[in-house]
């Protein structure tokens, strides 16, 4: 990996200007280092304008919409920052296939065609067979299915792909080994190297979309962004048929989570990270969830974000019985999908509900 010896603090404004002089959307670690440096903060408006221009050119006047469907919050991992941590005591919920389908019906009625299936590490219940069966039943209603679940093997991912699931999102959470160890106390997820190999397995299985990201707030965001850039570049070079997208989960207060032990990231930092990645990766999807506030999301779709969730419930069964269960994190943007779509239109952009067709995958 790229050496971070020359820390971003040593970047000069000349380095930033040089980076901004390179073709928009092209990547080098030196460029990304310059764009995320403190020196680049003075160039944030210019960077945002360039990012907006590039996003407009590559993605058009559109923003994609998706919804998460939480399947289970039973978990075998003890991640210190997560509301679903196995050591937390709260009534856990698993959705049967029928219950999951009922939730999906509510989501579909709101207009969504792009569904993200989410589960904590509950292999016993949310098994590969469960996911394949669910996917086959969801396919008539949704044009795009993806998962954000525990790590699987290439063979398991291939089964999901064959069942009509075309994307996998899986965050390294942090690229810093020591920090990783600190927050992942127990369970299969405690193995840093195994976690790091996940995107390779996902790509080998033929998945079209590979979502990567870090949980912002665990470690120095500048170093995390550099690592993300290198990881994405590696994946893009090696697996040229899969599209890499970045998500920006910023640590949010959650029930049972000690708020004092995290380094929360400022809005300005988040904006700089988003525009820096856009200026290095012209065609990468940039995804933002409802963890962020309505006001911030409204601005960010103007400067590089290409896909947002809306009306999300982050507990299993949350769509049919809102506010009944412990959520993985607290939602900030609580607007309905229709309201978010209206907001997108008000920005002169088209809310895109469907940008895929399950017919690509199978008959």
């Amino acid at each position: 990996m790229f050496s971070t010896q020359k820390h971003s603090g040593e970047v000069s404004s000349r380095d930033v200007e040089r980076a901004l002089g390179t073709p928009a959307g092209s990547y080098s670690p030196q460029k990304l280092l310059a764009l995320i440096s403190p020196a680049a903060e003075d160039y944030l408006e210019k960077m945002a304008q360039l990012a907006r221009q590039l996003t407009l050119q590559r993605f058009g006047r559109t923003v994609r919409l998706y919804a998460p469907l939480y399947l289970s919050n039973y978990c075998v991992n003890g991640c210190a920052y997560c509301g679903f941590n196995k050591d937390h005591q709260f009534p856990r919920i698993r959705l049967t296939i029928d219950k999951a389908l009922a939730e999906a019906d509510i989501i579909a009625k709101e207009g969504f065609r792009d569904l993200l299936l989410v589960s904590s590490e509950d292999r016993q219940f949310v098994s590969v067979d469960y996911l394949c069966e669910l996917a086959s039943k969801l396919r008539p209603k949704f044009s795009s299915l993806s998962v954000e679940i525990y790590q699987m093997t290439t063979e398991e991912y291939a089964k999901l792909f064959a069942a009509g699931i075309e994307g996998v999102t899986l965050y390294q959470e942090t690229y810093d080994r020591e920090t990783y160890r600190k927050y992942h106390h127990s369970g299969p997820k405690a193995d840093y190297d195994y976690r790091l190999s996940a995107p390779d397995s996902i790509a080998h299985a033929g998945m079209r979309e590979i979502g990567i990201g870090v949980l912002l707030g665990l470690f120095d965001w500048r170093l995390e962004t550099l690592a993300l850039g290198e990881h994405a570049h590696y994946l893009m070079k090696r697996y040229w048929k899969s599209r890499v997208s970045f998500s920006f989960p910023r640590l949010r207060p959650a029930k049972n989570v000690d708020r004092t032990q995290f380094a929360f990231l400022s809005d300005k930092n988040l904006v700089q990270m988003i525009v820096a990645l856009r200026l290095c990766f012209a065609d990468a999807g940039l995804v933002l969830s409802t963890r962020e506030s309505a006001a911030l999301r409204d601005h960010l779709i103007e400067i590089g974000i290409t896909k947002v969730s809306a009306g999300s419930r982050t507990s299993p069964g949350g769509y049919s019985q809102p506010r009944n269960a412990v959520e993985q994190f607290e939602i900030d943007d609580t607007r309905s999908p229709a309201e978010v779509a209206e907001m997108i239109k008000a920005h002169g952009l088209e809310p895109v509900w469907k940008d895929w067709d399950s017919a690509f995958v199978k008959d």
Partner: protein
Amino acid sequence: MDKLVIAGREFNSRLLVGTGKFASCEIMAEALEKSGAEIVTVALRRVDIENENDDTLRAIDVKKYLLLPNTSGARNAEEAVRLSKLARAATGINWVKLEVTPDPYYLLPDPIETLKAAEILVKDGFIVLPYINADPVLSRRLQDIGTAAVMPLGSPIGSNQGLKTRAALEIIIEQANVPVIVDAGLGLPSHAAEAMEMGADAVLINTAIATANEPGRMATAFKLAVEAGRIAYKAGVAASGRRANASSPLTGFLRDNK
């Protein structure tokens, strides 16, 4: 302007328009109208082809436009063929703009899978318009199979770089027995005019119109540019052709000395 003929069907416009990247269906509909286009391509991944109430589809008047489904997003021949058949079954339209683009970043077409898919689709009765790199030999191979046109790119899709493949396009146009439609990368009306002046039979524009500040006016600009380029081509561009012209005086003495 002379008519464009593809697979025996006549069109008055030589500008084809794509429907992606617009801010709304209303803006798209206005741009289509202003462009004068008669062939409008739609990404099957973006629409519900089986649903006649789909917003995008409803905004395209099929009495006015030939709806040309495209397989954008297909990574291999199998996917492109499956998608084409789905579209035909749903709409009865047997035209397809064949796109096989396994690289999700530059969306460059895969020549091998495109050829494979074209072969299957032509045999199955489709009118196939394949999106290809500006490769003269591939272009001939596709015509041998029976595609109704070839659609070489000017530069990577959405890049607005213009005719970066000019030298290869010239050969394709020179050798073609079917219409040559320059498909991607045309960012300015002048790029479109340039392609038409070279002898391209038509051009396809999407990003440059959809992402302009005023898509409707930009559509008009492209319409005029395409017409100007075509008329110039037919008028005989006083060009720096690669072949000697009759205007050369070098052998005039033979007549003079008669």
